[in-house]
């Protein structure tokens, strides 16, 4: 059997996590360096996958398959299609920046306690999350996916609850309580979703007799496995619920603002840019492939929820007083777009949605990380505490603006491509939904520009007068992301080429064809 | 005489014992009520044994007595130690742990 590339890609950060955690308390910087090294190594492997992957080849490539728990009919099956490759690349790309951005976020406050090693823990946990996310992108066995989909919660939980944002207006005490509230909320929401899904997973086993995505999808396709309509619907709902919590879809979204608000910005980025993508990805891979009929049955309801998310999230973003919560609600709006694109069941919609996952990851990372730098300077998350930053820290302001423009999906930046694809894809089948969703782009402009205006422009607030501009490390974090944003905005072809075939496959799974234009071109 | 009546008696005794457990406070008395229940069981065994005409029931009765004796030993030991440390054998006083 050839070199297990996928396993390696997932295992590497895991090993890194252990290694990082093992670094003694005093050698804090060694731990950071180690973590960064492992994340970069993972990035290299991800690039290898990207290269080795052949868009026009089989649906699942680089597959691995070993027996694992025969008792449950569970196999250790890995394989990637274009969608997974894109998202793995995204994850591997973002983690180094997240680590770099969080360089000082976990330095221990009291250094007396030799046993207490927050820094090591912080970076180890980040790497652990990366490992689990990657393997859940790779898993083609429902059970295997579920395991890591769930297990992922634990390191995330510790990241959120253990390493809160130090910039808190009400002092450390309330910060701690709010933080653990956010962490518990995050965990319980997702755990509840996961457990519902567990029931569905078991149900799937009872119906299908094994967990192999490929086999079941195969059987569904050639009709050798037909589920009773209601069974399929219940199972679909079980799966979808978990993913909708993770994504998050209105009205299951309220954990996200708390989690993103209370956690350190790198972790916030980790949540929204990486971990939540597993939810939308899973909708595309599992919901549609395993339960095509039920997916179509649920489409209208889901589209409505998605549109509500888009508008609702944007409106709440407008109403926020807290920078990070604002970004969180903006993300909710964007996830609405992604889900809408997935369930529009058109190739534009789904390619757009996949592209959207990637672009949103990068753009949110850019915006959020810059916001983090800003917050760490002033020590407050309240928009009202800023003003005139542009005058004292032009580079910071500039990058922040670009991040914002990406968030409002300005043409020329990556998110525009995906957003327009999603809208066009949706519009071509559900015009009304599409038009309502289009209002989202106006609201996006509103919350982004209001945020920029209140924080960056106007007379310089005395508190920010002495604010230093971006440091080298911070610029090193932001600049590449911006470059990627612009590149993918001008030339998204590399990504679309990888994603497109996979999307075609998915569409054929649900037996859907793109609506044909009314007026056909003569040629 | 119809052995079934003995069964009724056994059931009656058993119920009396159970009721005693439920209503009496003194640990010793409660314990005696349990013994009563055990003996009710014995009676039932013997009666059934008579009905079925095999000896199993009677043999079991002997076992039961032994078990009962063992229980007495252990039980009294515990109850007495409790009594000595609290100067009361009321089960209701032994309610430090609750909720």
């Amino acid at each position, binding site marked *: 059997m050839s070199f297990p590339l996928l396993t390696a890609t997932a295992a590497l950060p895991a090993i890194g996590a252990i290694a990082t955690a093992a670094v003694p308390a005093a050698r804090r910087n060694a731990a950071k360096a180690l973590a960064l090294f492992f994340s970069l190594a993972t990035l290299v492997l991800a690039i290898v996958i990207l290269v080795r992957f052949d868009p026009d080849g089989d649906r699942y490539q680089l597959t691995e398959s070993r027996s694992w728990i025969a008792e449950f009919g569970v196999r250790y099956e890995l394989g990637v299609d274009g969608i997974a490759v894109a998202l793995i690349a995204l994850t591997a790309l973002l983690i180094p920046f997240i680590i770099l951005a969080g360089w000082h976020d976990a330095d221990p406050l009291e250094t007396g306690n030799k046993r207490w090693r927050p820094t090591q823990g912080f970076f180890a946990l980040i790497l652990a999350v990366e490992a689990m996310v990657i393997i859940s992108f790779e898993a083609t066995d429902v059970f295997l996916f579920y395991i890591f989909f769930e297990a992922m919660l634990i390191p995330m939980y510790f990241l959120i609850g253990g390493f809160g944002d130090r910039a808190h207006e009400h002092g450390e005490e309330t910060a701690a309580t709010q933080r653990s509230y956010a962490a518990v909320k995050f965990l319980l929401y997702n755990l509840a979703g996961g457990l519902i899904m567990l029931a569905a997973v078991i149900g799937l086993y009872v119906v299908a007799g094994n967990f192999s995505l490929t086999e079941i999808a195969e059987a569904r396709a050639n009709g050798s496995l037909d589920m009773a309509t209601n069974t399929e619907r219940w199972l679909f709902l079980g799966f979808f619920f978990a993913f909708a919590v993770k994504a998050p879809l209105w009205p299951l979204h309220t954990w996200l603002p708390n989690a993103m608000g209370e956690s350190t910005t790198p972790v916030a980025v980790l949540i929204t840019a990486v971990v939540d993508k597993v939810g939308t990805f899973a909708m595309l891979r599992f919901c549609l492939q395993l339960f095509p009929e039920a997916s179509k049955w649920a489409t209208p309801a889901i589209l409505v929820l998605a549109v509500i998310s888009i508008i609702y999230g944007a409106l709440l973003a407008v109403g926020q007083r807290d920078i990070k919560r604002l970004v969180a609600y903006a993300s909710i709006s964007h996830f609405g777009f992604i889900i809408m694109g997935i369930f529009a069941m058109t190739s534009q919609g789904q390619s757009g949605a996949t592209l959207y996952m990637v672009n949103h990851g990068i753009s949110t990372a850019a915006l959020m990380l810059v916001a983090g730098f800003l917050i760490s300077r002033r020590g407050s998350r309240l928009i009202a505490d800023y003003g005139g930053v542009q005058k004292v820290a032009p580079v910071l302001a500039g990058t922040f603006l670009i991040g914002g423009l990406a968030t409002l999906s300005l043409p020329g930046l990556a998110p525009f491509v995906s957003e327009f694809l999603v809208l066009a894809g949706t*519009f071509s089948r559900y015009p009304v939904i599409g038009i309502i969703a289009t209002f989202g782009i106006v609201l996006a402009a509103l919350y982004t520009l209001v945020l920029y205006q209140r924080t960056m*422009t106007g007379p310089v607030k005395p508190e920010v007068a002495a604010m230093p501009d971006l440091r080298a490390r911070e610029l090193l974090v932001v600049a590449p992301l911006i470059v990627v944003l612009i590149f993918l905005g001008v030339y998204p*072809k590399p990504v679309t080429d990888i994603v497109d075939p996979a999307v075609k496959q998915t569409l054929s799974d649900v037996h859907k064809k793109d609506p044909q234009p*009314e007026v056909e071109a003569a040629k | 005489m119809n052995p079934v009546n003995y069964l009724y008696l056994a059931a009656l005794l058993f119920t009396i014992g159970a009721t005693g457990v439920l209503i009496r406070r003194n640990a010793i008395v409660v314990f005696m009520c349990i013994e009563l229940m055990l003996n009710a069981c014995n009676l039932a065994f013997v009666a059934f044994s008579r009905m079925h005409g095999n000896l199993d029931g009677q043999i079991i009765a002997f076992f039961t007595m032994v078990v009962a004796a063992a229980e007495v030993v252990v039980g009294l030991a515990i109850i007495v130690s409790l009594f000595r440390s609290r100067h009361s054998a009321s089960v209701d006083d032994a309610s430090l742990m609750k909720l």
Partner: protein
Amino acid sequence: MENLIALLIAAPLLGAAVLLVGGRRLDAVGHWLGTLLAATSFVIGLVLFADLLGKDAEDRTLTQHLFSWIPVEGFQADVAFQLDQLSMTFVLLITGVGSLIHLYSIGYMEHDERRRRFFGYLNLFLAAMLLLVLADNYLLLYVGWEGVGLASYLLIGFWQHKPSAATAAKKAFLVNRVGDMGLSIAIMLMFTTFGTFAFGPLLGTHEEPGLAGGASEATLNGIALMLLLAACGKSAQVPLQSWLGDAMEGPTPVSALIHAATMVTAGVYLIVRSAAIFNLAPDAQLVVTIVGAVTLLFGAIVGCAKDDIKKALAGSTMSQIGYMVLAAGLGPIGYVFAIMHLVTHGFFKAGLFLGAGSVMHGMNDEVDMRKYGGLRKYMPVTFITFGLGYLAIIGFPGLSGFFSKDKIIEAAFAKGGTEGWILGGCALLGAAITAYYMTRVMLMTFFGEERWKNQPTRSPQAPSAEPAAAYGGDAAAGHGAAATAEPHPHESPKSMTIPMIVLAFGSVFAGGFFSIGDRFLHWLEPVTGHSHGDSPVSALTVTLATMVVLVIGVAVAYAQYGRRPVPVVAPRGSLLTRAARRDLLQDDFNHVVLVRGGEHLTRSLVYVDHTLVDGVVNGTAASVGGLSGRMRKLQNGYARSYAVSMFGGVAILIAATLLMRAV
């Protein structure tokens, strides 16, 4: 030759990238670099123009395909350019006027420490605008469309430390976004209806019609109206005009280039470019004409009431674009004239703005015309150039405006029927008002007694006229010391006057040059097509009528502002005047309905999110907790009660078992 097209855009884009990324080390040369690249682009434009003239009218279309942009199953968007007569016209206008204004800005922004960035933004604008007019499909056009929006956002808010500027910038972008929504919906409609949104297959050429013909009229109307919405946003047409007035917060060169000459005319370009669609959507066309007519009156009325010279000019811009949109709405009768007026307007309006800028430059950035007066002898060049621009815009016979505007009025009448009369009437009325308010501006600024004497400028009465100098950011930072003292009007430096002179030439001769032998008509016809409507009134009559209303307008204005002295503090004025000062109250409407309403909506939603959506979950948790607390009480520590529960339990067990058997 085609490959030059990309260079047109590349040059200013490169400039923008270098200037914005380059950092402080470029401060010294930045402005020259920017100007140079703009000029380069202009030269390339000329070369291409020459090339086009070389070909015969039919195949004067160059296309260049760079790369496939968004290739997705069933969805093709390319980065490809199309240069035909229409785009060519715009290219020359944009790069030409653009270069001049770059030059002008060198002097105007001399004292601003962020001048480099200013030129970066200007270059960015040029690139985006060129992309807009050169794109060969609507999606790429959309990129340029929002690109110019971004540039205008950055430039309006260039003095970000001024809250008013920042707000104006945000407002401009938001209002434009509403328009953009229209554009994107239009594109989606095209995509779903035709499966493409590229000009070639969609619009076709005049010999072989494009796909557009195949669609139902309803669809086409829909597309057309959405395009109109977009145009309204970008070209400040009613009901999306509110941003233009505030946009004057930006530096004056910006107002001249973006908010007078080029960007605001993009809407007209869009409509004319989509002629093939509009021609098939009569209802939409009617709406277009109505919008145009309403706006040209609206702008004119607003222009009459403003004391802020730039805002007055802004109102006039609105009104002039109204003319163009009206013309564009008339269909083949009007397209050419719309563009022609667009070009001439580009010249004289830019000239007027530069003149205004020059005046402000000499007056410590005072913008309140009531504090001007008798400036003609202090700044002669400015006076002459401004004056020529003035004559041009009011349509003084022989000057540019005369030809272009006159044609539009004719066309309006030529539309025929009652609507022809109505539109024509509006156009005429507009002409009268134009003459009035422009004369007013002229008189208040250059004639009358010198009201700026012996009293400090920038009295609190004119808060709208808050000059940037107060923040040390504006060109007049050098005058900072004298800011509150009496101004010393003086002529502006060469770098500023030269562009004004050039533009003045344009405003004088362009119209004539275009009209003699219908040069312009023949030039554009292959693209837009043209038809002479059957005008109920002869061209001569129209011209005479125009002359008459012109004289009336000027006379009234002279009576009001030439004869009587102009009060320094604005009189309360009639109800209409006060309304007009407030942009006919539609800003207040926006504020009350949209802003306030929006705030309430968001606030209540935040509340809902916290209490309702979150509350449900927390409520469940709480209730489980309460249940737990109550059930806990059962564990009361009494062994006997435990025994009771056991006894009850076994009883239930037995009962249940027996019951199972019974049923």
